[in-house]
């Protein structure tokens, strides 16, 4: 009896792993296609099977995409735009996370009329399609003197990040034990004391969720990047688009795939390194109601 049960269990486990493996293979297929064709010479891609491993391996496409591919008039590769994107993403993520924490704190720990309505109003902002804000936002940036600058892009991404970051922190702080805050207050902690000494230090999981979410969204954002930047500030998505979508000429697919992968490395790293915390953070924050 016991024996049969354990073999039955083992069969279950084998089946479980088989299913998971099949699904994993399916999920990896598109990236397999990208990676495997990025290390092939162009002739092999044109003539051969896109699923086959390379016959001749080459890292040339990666080097080209990084430093010599045609982005505009000059063959600069993606390198300089990588820097632009970091200059944009790092402050934008930092600022919007801080704003989220501040808003979450205020909305959960203080009572005032219309607080819930204000929160709902902020939350609705995550649902608007960005195309509709393009023209009025351009006007706003012009008036603020931010048109065509990295600061302008930071501003835009912070504005449209408020909804999500506030949502994350509000739900997290709503579940935060009140006693801790109360006793801190008794000890004389002021407004910022509570935020910086009590709440933020124990906000690790939700900060991870917010940072991942904002980092990915802002890094991958194209429409604002193309419309609100100028020659000195355009981000990597615009550069990648220029590489991949050139109108005439030979399409160097291997370079395109290498470039696409290079552009995706920062977000992939963020997900892979902190994927575990992501689930933990979701558990702690936005899901539990």
């Amino acid at each position: 009896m016991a024996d049969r049960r354990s073999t039955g269990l083992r069969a279950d486990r084998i089946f479980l792993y088989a299913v998971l493996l099949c699904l994993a293979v399916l999920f990896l297929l598109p990236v397999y296609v990208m990676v495997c064709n990025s290390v092939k010479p162009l002739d092999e891609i044109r003539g051969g099977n896109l699923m086959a491993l390379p016959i001749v391996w080459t890292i040339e496409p990666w080097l080209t995409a990084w430093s010599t591919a045609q982005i505009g008039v000059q063959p600069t590769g993606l390198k300089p735009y990588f820097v632009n994107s970091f200059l944009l993403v790092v402050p934008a993520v930092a600022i919007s996370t801080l704003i989220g924490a501040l808003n979450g704190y205020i909305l959960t720990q203080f009572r005032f009329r219309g607080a819930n309505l204000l929160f709902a109003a902020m939350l609705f902002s995550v649902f608007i399609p960005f195309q509709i804000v393009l023209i009025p936002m351009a006007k706003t940036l012009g008036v603020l003197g931010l048109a065509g600058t990295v600061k302008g892009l930071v501003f835009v991404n912070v504005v449209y990040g408020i909804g999500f970051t506030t949502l994350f922190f509000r739900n997290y702080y709503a579940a935060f034990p009140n006693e801790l805050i109360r006793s801190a207050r008794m000890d004389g902690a002021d407004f910022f004391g509570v935020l910086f000494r009590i709440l933020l230090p124990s906000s690790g999981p939700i900060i991870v969720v917010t940072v991942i979410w904002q980092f990915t969204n802002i890094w991958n954002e194209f429409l604002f990047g193309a419309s609100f930047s100028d020659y000195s500030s355009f981000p990597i998505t615009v550069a990648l688009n220029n590489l991949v979508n050139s109108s005439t000429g030979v399409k160097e697919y291997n370079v395109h795939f290498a470039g696409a992968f290079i552009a995706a490395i920062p977000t992939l790293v963020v997900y892979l390194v902190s994927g575990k915390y992501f689930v933990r953070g979701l558990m702690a924050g936005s899901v539990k109601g």
Partner: protein
Amino acid sequence: MRAGALPKLLLSPSVLLVLVCVYGYIMFTIYLSFTSSTLMPSYEWAGTTSYQRLFAQENWHVALSNLWVFASLYIGVAVVLGLGFAILIDQHIRAEGAFRSIFLYPMALSFIVTGTAWKWLLDPGVGLEHTMHDLGWESFAFGWIKDSDMAIYCVIIAAVWQTTGFVMALFLAGLRGVDAEQISAARVDGARTWQIYLHIIIPQLGPVFVSAFVILAHMAIKSYDLVIALTNGGPGRSTWLPSVFMYQYSFTRNEMAIGAASAVMMLAAIGLVVLPYLFSEMRKVKNG
């Protein structure tokens, strides 16, 4: 605690920004939809002309019916698969982290990046069909992306691929939060694993279903890159979604008033979907 001046002051920039950059701009869009704007905004009142023209556009009706198919299948499949993946991963398996990462990573990529890879995979000439033929399965046929009636399903496949991992993460977080005592009690009563999931665990995941639904619904309505990268709206106009319609009419057809009218319709639809959710979120914090 009652709010003094400081919290209100610190909240006000966010409120102001959202008020101007979301609601102000929405009002502006609504206004535009009643003007005769073409290439750039114009302030000449034109009544409901652009709405009449919007509903006379074959493209708009195609986009609407596609949205219906796309949204219902995409949300349904992503929720079912996401829950399924979460349950599979929740079975105390080895290499849990690796599997989770594999299902989650598409979320990190934009469609500017993965669009070409998907286009190739789905293209019968070079992709899956071609590979299967090379492997000797001659009768294998998968040419949906070239077929006006089926191409929208290709868009769904790619969209599901991109977001299922995220839905899985939501459910995984939910599963880990389920009361363990109830489960062990049910086990003692001799309930099978699937019965436990069906009768005890899943009913407790209500809030997760809501979160997943809302996030997927807003993605379905906002999906733009996906369609452009995969089919660019084709074959013909068969994979247009309202977001594609809005962009095309506003920015490439120089029909900004019609574009604005379509945006207003989309906002109304989004409002219908998310208002109940907003109210439920509002009620979450009562101690406030």
